[in-house]
């Protein structure tokens, strides 16, 4: 048995060598083949990329929150749906053991119409919180550095990744104060921060709670009685999970306590399952995969067709099925590698360009690259199996 296995190993090794030589000896052909597979790789990356961009962009605000636990209304099925809970819940939260701080975040989108002179009104997402206790990670300290300016009446800072068509000069947010109109009142943009837009929001503003009250009087005599999100930071000595169960017990029904990652997962699940958007991109990815199989099959089948006489001669010599399966599978594997690597780097470039044009967040994480690699591998092996059928099933005389 072991000698038989050794025999198979030797056969496969020879097959690999032959596949390598056949694939690499004509550089021009190799480049064409790699380009074909690389294109399919990019297509899949692009589709998955848009899909992820939808989710990544949508949850970016949640990701940037600097807290251990988040309070949110149970009715808030998506971040963009404006379902809120009473501010008193935040007082309850603050009184719970293990809670270091609990900060209210106010969001307004439907009534937050921003207008620049000469432009039409466009909705923007307004984010407000107690500036003394920052709720965002604020890695570049953009919010912190604008803190004093934001205390002024009618002041706000604007997301640098907001859509251009608001009419503000986004590259020059820090240098000069730009004036516009928000919900019918004058507003001054006194600085910038970085967050990113998504499919529901074209841009973001951050302002103080006092200013928020000024602009959104429609929300009641005190526009801040209803809170959009509660950001809870726990005592570092206590396990956030314990705090979570305490909170869940104390706060009234209708309000959820979620860890940041749970909330991200819940939001993604909503877009993936309850909207057609997830399905659209899933279909796009499958189409990318199918196009990849076709390209890859074409490349392999042509290559096998080009060498059919040689393979038939080997078959006539007594080379068996294992050898030919080995050659074709080795070739698919090599093609997968030769196609994936340039496809991956081209994708990085493409995503940069995409991001620059759309403002969406296009990321390639190791896991996502791994998934695409796996798909590329399956794609190449499938095509290889399809392409070698003729070689395996036919009499050599029919192959010349």
């Amino acid at each position: 048995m072991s000698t038989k296995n050794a025999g198979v190993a030797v056969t496969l090794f020879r097959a690999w060598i032959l596949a390598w030589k056949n694939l690499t000896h004509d550089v021009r052909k190799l480049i064409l083949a790699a380009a074909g597979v690389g294109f399919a790789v990019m297509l899949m990356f692009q589709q998955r990329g848009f899909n992820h961009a939808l989710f990544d962009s949508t949850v970016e605000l949640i990701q940037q929150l600097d807290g251990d636990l988040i309070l949110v209304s149970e009715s808030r099925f998506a971040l963009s749906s404006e379902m809120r809970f009473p501010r008193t819940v935040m007082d309850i939260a603050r009184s719970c053991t293990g809670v270091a701080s609990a900060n209210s975040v106010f969001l307004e989108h439907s009534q937050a119409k921003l207008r620049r002179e000469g432009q039409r009104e466009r909705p923007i997402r307004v984010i407000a919180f107690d500036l003394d206790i920052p709720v965002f990670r604020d890695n570049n300290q953009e919010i912190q550095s604008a803190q004093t300016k934001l205390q002024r009446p009618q002041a706000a800072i604007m997301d640098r990744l907001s859509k251009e068509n608001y009419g503000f000069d986004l590259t020059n947010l820090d240098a000069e104060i730009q004036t516009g109109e928000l919900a019918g009142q004058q507003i001054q943009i006194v600085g910038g921060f970085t967050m990113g837009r998504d499919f529901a929001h074209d841009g973001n503003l951050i302002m103080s709670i006092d200013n928020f009250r000024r602009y959104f009087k429609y929300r009641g005599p005190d526009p801040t009685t209803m809170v959009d999100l509660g950001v809870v930071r726990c005592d570092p000595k206590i396990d956030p999970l314990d705090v979570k169960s305490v909170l869940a017990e104390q706060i009234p029904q209708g309000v959820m306590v979620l860890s940041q990652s749970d909330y991200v997962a819940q939001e993604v699940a909503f877009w993936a399952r309850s909207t057609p958007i997830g399905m659209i991109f899933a279909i796009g990815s499958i189409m990318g995969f199918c196009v990849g199989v076709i390209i890859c099959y074409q490349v392999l089948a042509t290559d096998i067709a080009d060498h059919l006489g040689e393979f038939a001669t080997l078959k006539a010599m007594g080379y068996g099925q294992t050898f030919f399966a080995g050659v074709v599978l080795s070739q698919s594997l090599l093609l997968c590698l030769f196609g994936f690597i340039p496809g991956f780097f081209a994708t990085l470039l493409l995503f940069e360009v995409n991001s620059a044009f759309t403002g969406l967040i296009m990321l390639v994480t190791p896991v996502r690259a791994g998934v695409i690699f796996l798909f590329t591998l399956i794609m190449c092996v499938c095509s290889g199996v399809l392409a070698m059928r003729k070689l395996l099933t036919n009499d050599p005389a029919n192959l010349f």
Partner: protein
Amino acid sequence: MILDHDQLDQLIACWVPSDSEQSISIDGLDHFYGEGEARKQVLFDNHLHIRRGEIVIMTGPSGSGKTTLLTLIGTLRTVQSGNARVLDRQLLGISRDQIGQLRQEIGFIFQAHNLFESLTATQNVKMATELIGLSASEAHQRISGLLTRLGLGHRLNYKPKSLSGGQKQRVAIARGIVHHPRLILADEPTAALDADSGREVVTILQELAKHQQCTILIVTHDNRILDVADRIINMVDGRIHSNVLVQRTAMICRILQEFPLFRSLSPRVLSQVADRMELQQFEPGMEIIRQGEIGKEFFVIARGDVDIIVDGKTVNVLGRGSFFGEVSLIKEQPRNATVRSNTNAICFVLAKEDFQSVLNASASFEQELRQAIFERQ
């Protein structure tokens, strides 16, 4: 007239092919292409027996089925019906494992060289040695030796792109014979070669046949190489039209020419006679023909003596070079005498129809014959 005993012994050896020595043994082989309505028969009831070490050349117009027959023998095509034994294995219903083993004992040389562009000459030939488990140094020695003999010693590590058409074909030939196959099947192997290279290839094939008792079957239109053939097979419309043991026929011709009777025949007619002649051996005292029977054969004595007996009396003794049996064939009469061998006798035997067709083909032969009969009386 004295017959060369060695030649006779060789002839006799030619005649009695023992079954175990046959490389190829085909009986009732049909073959069809296509299926259903498009099904077309391309081979019709073919019979072919080739002994070990024979060099066989197969000719015929294109489309006559010679390549089909070649690929069937080489297991490159699945045998559909009929009996086909190649190197002691039945091809009808052969298993995949057995096919793999059988193919390793066969060397193929195709019209197209089918070399891998990505491999050097040596590496291409090495593909054939890897299956038979030679050590690396042994394989390398054998390959470079063979390629050098074929005039490619200075091209061992060249890729096909840098080789001429003839050089590529020689590499393909080296690949076909490097593993010392027991049977070599070649489809137009010299078509792409100049006279010298073609001759060198044929010489190598001849040596393989002689020293390693390798059987060689060549499909070719190249009449420059016909001289190496032991047997020439002509195929027409899917049938073996003629199957001639060239060497044997040549040998019989040489022997027959010694007889005055056959001296006047043109080489063409002589070879026809020779081709159709059978050799028969008779023990002392055996009756070869009997008086009163209908004559079916014509005899020429190659060795030994026979008694002519009419009505129980011995009237004559015929020796080497004499012939008998012709009278009843010409006159359509019963045998007028009994002929019995009185020593170990060997005769060339020609059947009645063949005898008559020779008679019709050559007026001088008939005259010669009548003269001889006249003289005998």
